[in-house]
């Protein structure tokens, strides 16, 4: 089933979906697996598997450090493919996407990378440094393979730009909640709701809202306004502080009626 259809089907029984994120090989692939197990058991709908890159330009300090540490431990792109293949088989109820920077894809070979991602059962890819203007072959090849090339809306996007961008993508649109990099807090205010209304008007695709979403209150605020909440840095911080065992309770808490 296409990713956007799957997300719409899930929305028939849920108020809001959850997408979580982790950096592959950080702190280790074993921990990654345990974290994914807990995420899956607590109803996470999508997981971004970030292939570490030496120059993570769009990420904030927590994820930058995770990228660096993973690479320092010797994580290779090949390890990431092998691990992702295992996770897709082990947790079929979750949609897995690769998140990384374009050089990782480019160096591997765009077609080869996408073919392999499709073959192991990933649903799509998220590349924050590949705008549609530069990604014509990538967007085309992804769609041919049934992969969703995720596009972005940002607070600086005009209505016209949103329509243009959404038209190139598939699966869902990643709505960047505010300016800046990953990790800092986002205020849930009138400015944000107005912005989400503009996003909604620009596309039929589900809206996944990320950057600074960290608590039940943040998620509750998005219910009815967005289709999926994206939790990134918050889980990495949690694992750094309390270990992988804390993830299940945290995820369950995000969806609990307050």
């Amino acid at each position, binding site marked *: 089933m296409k990713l956007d259809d799957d997300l719409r089907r899930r929305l028939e029984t849920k108020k809001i979906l959850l997408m979580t994120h982790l950096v592959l090989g950080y702190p280790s692939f074993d921990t990654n697996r345990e974290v994914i197990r807990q995420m899956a058991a607590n109803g996470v709908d999508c997981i971004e598997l970030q292939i570490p890159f030496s120059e993570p*330009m769009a990420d904030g300090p927590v994820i930058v450090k995770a990228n660096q540490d993973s690479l320092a431990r010797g994580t290779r792109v090949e390890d990431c493919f092998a691990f992702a293949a295992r996770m897709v088989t082990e947790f079929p109820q979750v949609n897995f996407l690769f998140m990384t920077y374009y050089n990782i894809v480019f160096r591997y070979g765009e077609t080869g990378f996408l073919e392999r991602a499709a073959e192991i059962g990933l649903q799509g890819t998220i590349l924050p440094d590949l*705008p549609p203007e*530069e990604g014509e072959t990538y967007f085309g090849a992804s769609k041919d393979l049934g992969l969703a090339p995720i596009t*972005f809306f940002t607070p600086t996007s005009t209505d016209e730009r949103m329509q243009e961008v959404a038209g190139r993508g598939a699966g869902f649109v990643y709505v960047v909640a505010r300016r*800046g990099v990953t990790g800092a807090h986002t205020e849930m205010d009138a400015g944000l709701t107005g912005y989400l209304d503009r996003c909604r008007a620009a596309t039929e695709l589900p809206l996944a809202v990320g950057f600074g979403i960290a608590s039940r209150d943040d998620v509750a605020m998005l219910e009815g306004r967005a289709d999926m909440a994206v939790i990134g840095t918050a889980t990495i911080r949690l694992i750094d502080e309390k270990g992988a065992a804390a993830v299940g309770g945290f995820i369950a808490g995000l969806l609990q009626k307050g």
Partner: protein
Amino acid sequence: MKKGYFGQWGGAFIPEVLHATFVQLNDEYKKLRQDPAFWQEYIDLMGNYSCRPTPLTFAENLSDYLGGARIYIKREDLNHTGAHKANNVMGQGLLVRRMGKKRVIAETGAGQHGVATATMAARFGFDCTIYMGEEDVARQRPNVFWMEKLGATVVPVTNGSRTLKDAINEAFRDWVTTMDETHYVFGTACGPHPFPEMVAWFQSIIGLEARKQIIAQHGRMPARVYACVGGGSNAMGIFQGFLDEDVELIGVEAGGKGLDTDQHASRMVGDRAAPGVAQGYKTMFLQDDDGQMRSTHSIAAGLDYVGISPILSDLGEQGRVRFEAATDTEVLEALTMSMEKEGIIPALESSHAFVQAIKEAPKMDRDEAIIINMSGRGDKDIFTIAHAFDDPSWKQFIIDRADSYRR
């Protein structure tokens, strides 16, 4: 060809949040290119504030000593702040003023671009933040001192290899948050479009001057022009004066401890670089098979960078520019020769260009001329150069001075 591409190189690989910022930047840049009054405003500013045109010095002693081609030196060391960097920075300063922004940010490696940007910000009345790798902050303390005295905030970057590429990443992280009020003054002819083209345009002032000067002094075109290549802005600057002439253009990269080691920063020679996309543009990057950037080394901090101007990647691929590499050891020898024969102290970066010129000049005819682009002065980097020469009396001076501060 797609906008912002030079052959297969260049482009604008930017996060979506910067899309609107780049639309504005491209519009404003296009307006500048179409406004002849702007270029005159720029020339006037550089003449009045920055000692332009810089001289083209005939190096008679060095020419006679080597016994071949007549050697001319383009003196960017005499540009304000001691290097070609000011050309780009003052041009972008005028652009920022037109855009109505009030704050500038920049990355710096050795600190030359940081000092130039802080100088420009002081002159134009902008707030200024400079990102600099923690390792470079430690290596280049005098430049940090000047940036701070000029009113800039210097932020040490502790990510990655804590050098130039990491400072660029951090400057982008600032920019994606503050773009409404802030312009990122990119320091070299790299990064996303329009930066390579725009920086090369401001630096073309070097080549335009040198072209007139060599004709006035030598009567015709030089046979060859040499420039060191880090990001490539000084090379692009001088090469643009000679691109459409029958003049051989030679770019000299950092050979570090040798191309057969992993301690160099040569993208166009050697076998450690491959096509890639990072820091907003596509070029030859020093990277591994997975696409992770490699660590680099050069005696000259300004050449110690993983990428190269996409314009130079293209000119290299076309065979229009020949690339060579100079090792750290050769650089110190060339620097010594320049000081002893001409009383001229090139920066360690610029000394790379001297190395290749000194190798080739003796094999050329005496009626041929060559130009070396001396991109910056070395005396300002006395701590680095004295350290590179391992000078005993300098070390004793530092020890004594440190002792006097301790008392």
